[in-house]
């Protein structure tokens, strides 16, 4: 598998570490249910998902990849922090 790092370009997946579904962290007072959703419950679709990868052996950016879990096709990859690559 090769991931299109928005900074480094396409790289072998062995340079990356996976974190899983990209979700927004709830506010501390968002309540038990929101936190349960964030930490544990997943749609886990057989299809496109957005997920976090860490380019640990490259630029050390966290990136957000849109990847199809059924085919491994990758349709998008952006910096997890949004804009501002350097």
């Amino acid at each position, binding site marked *: *598998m*090769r991931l299109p790092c928005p900074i480094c370009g396409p790289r072998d997946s062995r340079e990356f570490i996976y974190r899983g579904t990209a979700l927004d962290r*709830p506010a501390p007072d968002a309540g038990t249910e929101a936190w349960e959703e964030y930490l544990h419950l997943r749609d886990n679709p057989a299809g496109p998902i957005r997920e976090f990868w*860490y380019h640990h052996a490259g630029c050390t950016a*966290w990136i957000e990849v849109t990847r199809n879990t059924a085919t491994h096709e990758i349709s998008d990859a952006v*910096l997890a922090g949004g804009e501002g690559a350097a």
Partner: protein
Amino acid sequence: MRVKDRGRIDRESRIAFTFDGARYEGHPGDTLASALLANDVRMVGRSFKYHRPRGILTAGSAEPNALVTVGRGAEASPNERATMVELAEGLAVTSQNRWPSLGFDVLSVNDMAARFLGSGFYYKTFMWPRSFWEKVYEPAIRRAAGLGALSGQHDPADTEKGFLFCDLLVIGAGPAGLMAALVAGEAGADVILADEGFAPGGQLTGEVEDIAGQPAHAWAESTWAKLNAMPNVRCMSRTTVTGAYDQGTFGALERFPEGRGPRECFWRIAAKRSVLAAGALERAIAFRNNDRPGIMTAGAVRAYLNRWGVSSGRAVTVFANNDDAHRTARDLVAAGVSVAAVLDSRHDAPKSPDFEVIRGAQVCNTAGRKRLESVTYRTSKGEQSLMTDCLAISGGWNPAVHLTCHMNSRPVWRDDLLAFVPAPGAVPGLIPAGACNGVFATAACLADGASAAKTALRELGMTSPDVDLPDAGADAGRISPLWAVPGKGRSWLDFQNDVTVKDVKQAAQENFQSVEHMKRYTTQGMATDQGKMSNVTALAVLADATGRAIPETGTTTFRPPFSPVSIAAMGAGGRGQSFAPQRFMTSHAATVERGAPMIEAGLWYRPTYFPAPGETHWRQACDREVRYVRNAVGVADVSTLGKIDIQGPGAAALLDFVYTGLFSSLKEGRVRYGLMLREDGHVMDDGTTARLGENHYLMTTTTAAAGEVMRHLDFAKQVLRRDLDVATISVTEQWAQFAVAGPKSRDLLEDLLGTSLGGWPFMSCGPVKVGGVDGRLFRISFSGEQGWEIAVPARFGASLFDALVAKAEAIDGGMYGMEALNVLRIEKGFLTHAELHGRTTAFDLGMGRMISAKKDCIGKVMAARPGLVANSRAQLVGLKPVGEVQQLVSGAHLFREGARISPENDQGYVTSVCYSPTLGHMIGLAFLERGPDRMGDRIRMVDRTKDIETLCEVVSPVFFDPDGGRARA
């Protein structure tokens, strides 16, 4: 035997080799298979289950029968396909799966008992008595099973791996592949052309036909040479592309049978586009006793003749359902080999003036145990026999669709071709061309290859050159279906695994009607060829048995690798110390010189203890080193701890966010202990963090978690707290850092630094000059004694270590290792990964109050889940033996006195133990249910692995100097 004026071997040179001890000769250009056939060796192996005599079936990588062991001793490589082994001087080859010899094999009795050994027989018996499975049945089955043997010695093979990149990967150097590479090469694309053989041309290497007015093999060779001369084309012979993976990644195995250097290289190829030109594999026909030595595929008989100048028999018979196989008879007759007849199942088969064609004929039996003697065939006129020592069979050709299945695509059936072809878009970016795409005539293959390359170039945004297609044969031949000849007896499908038509029918009868069920029940297609020779035929038999058409019966799938790959090749670099990087401290050489046994700490090596003259046991050294620290001064290299430099206006806020405690309130020049949680509320790591400046902190992590913490900080700052302006970078490697601990530590350092340290309180830090070098000093303690850590740029580490040790030894101290370090910290109840084992919470560790109520931090919300703060949880305590037995054991469990030893009564476990030379007895840290409420209680420590039971008192985990006065002194 060799035939005159045929083949492209070097007859002038001879190569000697042995097979089962007998000496033979062959020539450069031979494979082991061609050389054996040239020497008239027919029987080369025994089948898996029935131990039937077997000869060479094919001339390629799908060979299921001719598996041999090549080499001796630790170099012996089992299950090598004789058809793929290049002949080399002194090659020592032995047959397999027979005892005592290939000619006389005791287990050939299995063949006699075949009627009792049909599909799945083992699922139905061997169940009584129960204990007999492991003791009797299974050992017998295991001994009988398997083909070749591993030597049992460490594999001495030198192997390597590598990465390649290209615009276009062309897989296979037959007509389609060569043409594709030529077009792409001339377009200036970056091309890799890989072929599994050692001569280019694929199927052309064994055929008599012309391309561009020259012999096809000569065209292939000259085209290959032309490509090889292009700087933008990498031609790789002896290279099997083994698997197709995501985003254009391929695995490929390159072999280097000759010369020095590694023998195999496993390549990972990243290709923007690829052309699959893997050709096609000829299939057999199932009929009674179709497995005898001397029965071969028609294409193989032709290849042995045309490429290697070997006649596979004295009187050859051809049995086929297609035109293509007639070329075998044609070529044999032209070479002067006798052709007994061509038996063609079709009533409209073409006739030939050169050999007899018997139309509408089907072979229904054969004779000859160790080599074929005769065949019996059936026509409308009845059954007749022919004396023949070689039967060339062809049931048609299966496109080599294998790689197109590696990403889950299923091939599609084409009734006109009687074959499966790749589904469109099977592998993103991969374009099948030529025979693997169901295009069989040579001219069409050339055109298909060129067209595939043009498609790839267009997709890559490159311009295709004008390339003329060379003239070539345009006849693809006709075929009519014939899968299995009906009749009694056993007709083989999977030759190696001994799966017959009857087995497939029985499987269907027992309702194993799904292809996958049939395959798994009969083991069809699970041999070393992975069904390349037999799957389609078996599918046709299953379709027939279940009254379904082939496409609705299904397809089997193919998975990587395309052909077998040694573990040594894919695992190259894993041997010995190469398995993972080694990390050495700057004090390593000095430490090893002192005789310290080193242990692995993550990737690092650290000293366990430093033996002194006269000491006979590690405990003596450990006790001595503990006393250095408690009574004088000890020195230890602590450079392995992770160190992260954190700078920027957002530094304090980042630390507040990742630690449970507050760090924004830490004063400059001071150090604070921090506890870091995962978002799930469990403790992830701990360490001290120093504030070096207003916007500048230095965090330390445990040795093992340094990388994980760095990633965690990056996640926090890049994803969760993008509002913060903060930079982080590891400085673990920049600084060599040494702990100097003990009542005399200040004396040592003042002497070393030539300055007073009176103004440095506990948990302070700051810059110092160390012999003129800019260093850092931290007053922190992991021993409970007055302690310091002194850091200098790593290039001075070795030098500083030597200086520290010399000074320590001059004042009755010295170096201490991990054992002493562990004792010192257990005596103080300090934690390591034994306690921070990933399942513990701040609450469990008695640090619940360290989670600041004033702010959010990672893990705070989930740490408050009821289950994570329940008083019934096992919590940190100290243990002190109070009975006759004084032994404590890490990993032992805890029970109330008098309670039965059962899971319900299990109350906790011991994490760390040591003998405390300071206290004069063993001490331990443990997690005990409601531990903090049970101080002074008695508890039973039980280790059932060594049958040790120790009565303990539950005590505070801080065994020594509970008010911490010594560290602050």
